């Protein structure tokens, strides 16, 4: 409601703004960016993308402002990418451009395809970013990447957690001890290079286990099944098996992962996926 009031107030200001405006301080000039500016900003971004794909980190470094927040994390991440990911191809699509007098903000979805250096296994990361471009004396420069960072895997990309199926009939769960085919997949480009990652699984009945997913390609972790079984007694935590008390269903099995580095302008993000057992 407050925002609606604010918008209404701003709208009211529109027709009267020019009438009541006072002299601007010296040096302030009204300016409106045009499509030429947007195109030039996009061309500068494309140049950086091509440099990243070819591993020309020196060119990118020369294009950055030394005062950029997270400069070294950005550069180091790109250098690690150029070492561990080969044949990088960054595909931008669904681009939107918002331009101000000396700033252009390019919102786009992206897909990054690559091959891991060790086994040459193909990988695919996706994300959505806002590229902040600032007009400098010598042209448009990349000021920051907000959201998922496609240039530097370790500079933050929001993870995705997928669990299938989302519901399990109790009758399908084996009696303890057994294994049930639940597919759990975590994609976190920040963790490219690790062989495994631990996420948390807990039930509404009080069981809590640490579940290890193994890497199938850089940054993509998966397991096809889970030690999941039913019994008529309350579960035991941290015993290596997710136990469902079949006298207290329906129950919920929840998987939780906290993405410590989900991208610029985003503090650590909690990802949850739940499976209903009835």
């Amino acid at each position, binding site marked *: *409601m*407050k925002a*609606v009031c604010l918008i209404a107030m*701003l*709208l009211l200001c*529109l027709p009267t*703004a020019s009438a009541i405006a*006072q002299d601007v301080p010296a040096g*302030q000039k*009204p300016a*409106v960016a045009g*499509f030429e500016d947007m195109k030039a900003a996009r061309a500068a971004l494309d140049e950086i993308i091509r440099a990243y794909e070819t591993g020309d980190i*020196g060119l990118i*470094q*020369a294009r950055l402002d030394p*005062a*950029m*927040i997270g400069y070294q*994390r950005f550069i*180091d991440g790109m*250098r690690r990418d150029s*070492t561990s990911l080969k044949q990088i191809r960054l*595909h931008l*699509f*669904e681009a*939107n451009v*918002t*331009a*101000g007098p000396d*700033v*252009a903000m390019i919102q786009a979805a992206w897909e990054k395809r690559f*091959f891991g*250096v*060790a086994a040459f296994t*193909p990988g695919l990361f996706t994300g*959505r970013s806002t590229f902040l471009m600032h007009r400098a004396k010598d042209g448009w420069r990349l*000021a920051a*990447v*907000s959201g998922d960072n496609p240039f530097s895997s370790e500079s933050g990309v929001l993870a995705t957690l997928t669990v299938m199926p989302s519901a399990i009939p109790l009758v399908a769960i084996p009696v303890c001890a057994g294994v049930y085919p639940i597919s759990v997949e975590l994609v976190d480009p920040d963790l490219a*290079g*690790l*062989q*495994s*990652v*631990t996420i948390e699984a807990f039930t509404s009945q009080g069981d*809590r*286990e*640490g*579940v*290890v997913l*193994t890497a199938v390609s850089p940054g993509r972790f998966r397991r096809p099944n*889970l030690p999941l079984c039913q019994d008529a007694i309350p579960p035991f935590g*941290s015993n290596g098996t997710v136990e469902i008390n079949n006298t207290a269903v329906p129950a919920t099995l929840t998987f939780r992962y*906290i993405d*410590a580095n989900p991208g*610029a302008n*985003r*503090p650590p*993000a*909690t990802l949850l996926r739940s499976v209903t057992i009835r």
Partner: protein
Amino acid sequence: MIQLSRQAEEGVRHGLRLAALPGLVLSLTATSTFAATQLADNSTVLAQFAQAAGGPAPQLVQAEDGDTKIEWQGGITADYYSRSASGGAVLTPYSGGHYHRIGVQSDLRGTSPEGDVAWAQFAMTQTDDPSVLMLGNSQINTLSAGRAGQGYRFAVGDVAVNHSILGANSPLRGMLAQRYFGQALLSASAGVIAESWEALADQGRRRMFLKNAYALKAEMPFSQNFQAYATAQGFREDGDSVGSGALALVPTSGNSATAGMNWRDGRAFLQAEAGLSRFGEKGLEGHRDRALIVDGGWQGDKLGLRLGHHDLGRYYASLSGLAGAGVKETYANASWVATAWMSLTGDVRRSENSMAAPPILPPPPTIPPTPVTPYTPFTGTTEAANLRAQFTFPDVPGLGLGLTAGESRGKSSGSGGVNRSQNQGANLTYAKTAWNTSLGYQNSRQSNSIAASSDSRTDTWTASYGRNWSDATDVAPASWMLNATASGSFQRQHLDSGASATLNTLNLVVSGERSNWGRASAILGASRGHDATGGELRQHWYQVEAGRALDQRSGIALYIRAMSSFQERSAIAYRDKTAGVRLSYAF
């Protein structure tokens, strides 16, 4: 706008209202001036646009009514192309088929006698190619309208909020108003952060929560050299804006306030800002955090110095894409023109990445299929230094040499892991009027004790030769020109595991243009090598494009491009080939 995020139907109505606003606004400002519109084509620009077939749209209508000027720049391009593709979604973004792509853009402006500018900008893409638009077949790329003049600025639609580094620096779909009251500037913005206008109106096209946001700023100069400002901003993600189960994320909210200053006196400058924020995830414990940045410098005739310190808590939440959270860094940067033939740039910095450790330790692994490795490869503290030198040789005009060297060492705070990155390079260039050449060498060494599988040393050689021809003389411009550039790179990567990978690439680019004919370009390239497993890598690609003007307003271009990769290895083979025609028209 707020209601919009809660109910899709209402969102559509709001979106339509918002889309209608630019027209209304412009109609208010431009009605009186449209009557006196006069056509004044700029034939040169039009011809260039048409020949470029997709280049910048020219100014099409220029009208003057006394001192008031109306400008309308617009263009439309239509592509029709056929593509064959193989390899699957993991290897290529392209799929086979016959596709079209239409792009429309319009930029309408009116300038009052006082210099006030009113504008309405619109750009849209319509296509059935899923590699351009994955969801839906049309998208508004830009939608903006507003008015700016002496002491005020107002905009609706896509607005770029650019208040401060730690406050708000983000695109919004909403509105922005700025106005000077005497010497004080007040700026206010409100709207929604959404993937696109279509996602704003249609829940089915959302892949992230709609984020309702506002931002305020007040700025006051206290002297000719000193300004101070304060900002306040906040956001709230709408958990109902995305279908249940579509996202694993928990909706978040945040508020922050900052205060900052800018000072400049002659050659010296200093800017600083401090902020406090509150961040929360729905149903979870909230966090308060703070941020501080200080950047200063001095610019002399031959020497430039930059110093700065940034300290942003990991839960610092703002609307600024510049404010990457969880960073603490201090840097010094200097540029020095030491002599007429040598300039040096040096940079040293120390940074701590507090995103290194997970905020909540994951539970001990109780269901482990494999032995567990440490949680994170992130570096806790990194120290880095870089030096770049550029030499010119007065005795040999056109000859230049660039040298670079850099190193960073990092230590993970929790796991004790060590990262190290070293790089050195040299690049020799020589340029004459009609040709240029370069030779470069880069060497880099990367190691990461936690993810050691890619520890390696990489050597890269690059070379290029370019030449241009034309009939230009001292008194007459060129009626034709031809450019050709051949380049090659040769890369070897030696992994510490003992394996090695190579990739050698050759590329030839030729482009030409003749007055009254048009222009054409061709690219031909190939690469050969092997990966670390010994598997052979073969790729080749080509691209040919030719375009010419049909008249002063329209142009046509034909193109064909293809890439073939690793066809001898079925598991990773992919290829695509596209042939199409593009028509352009300026209206």
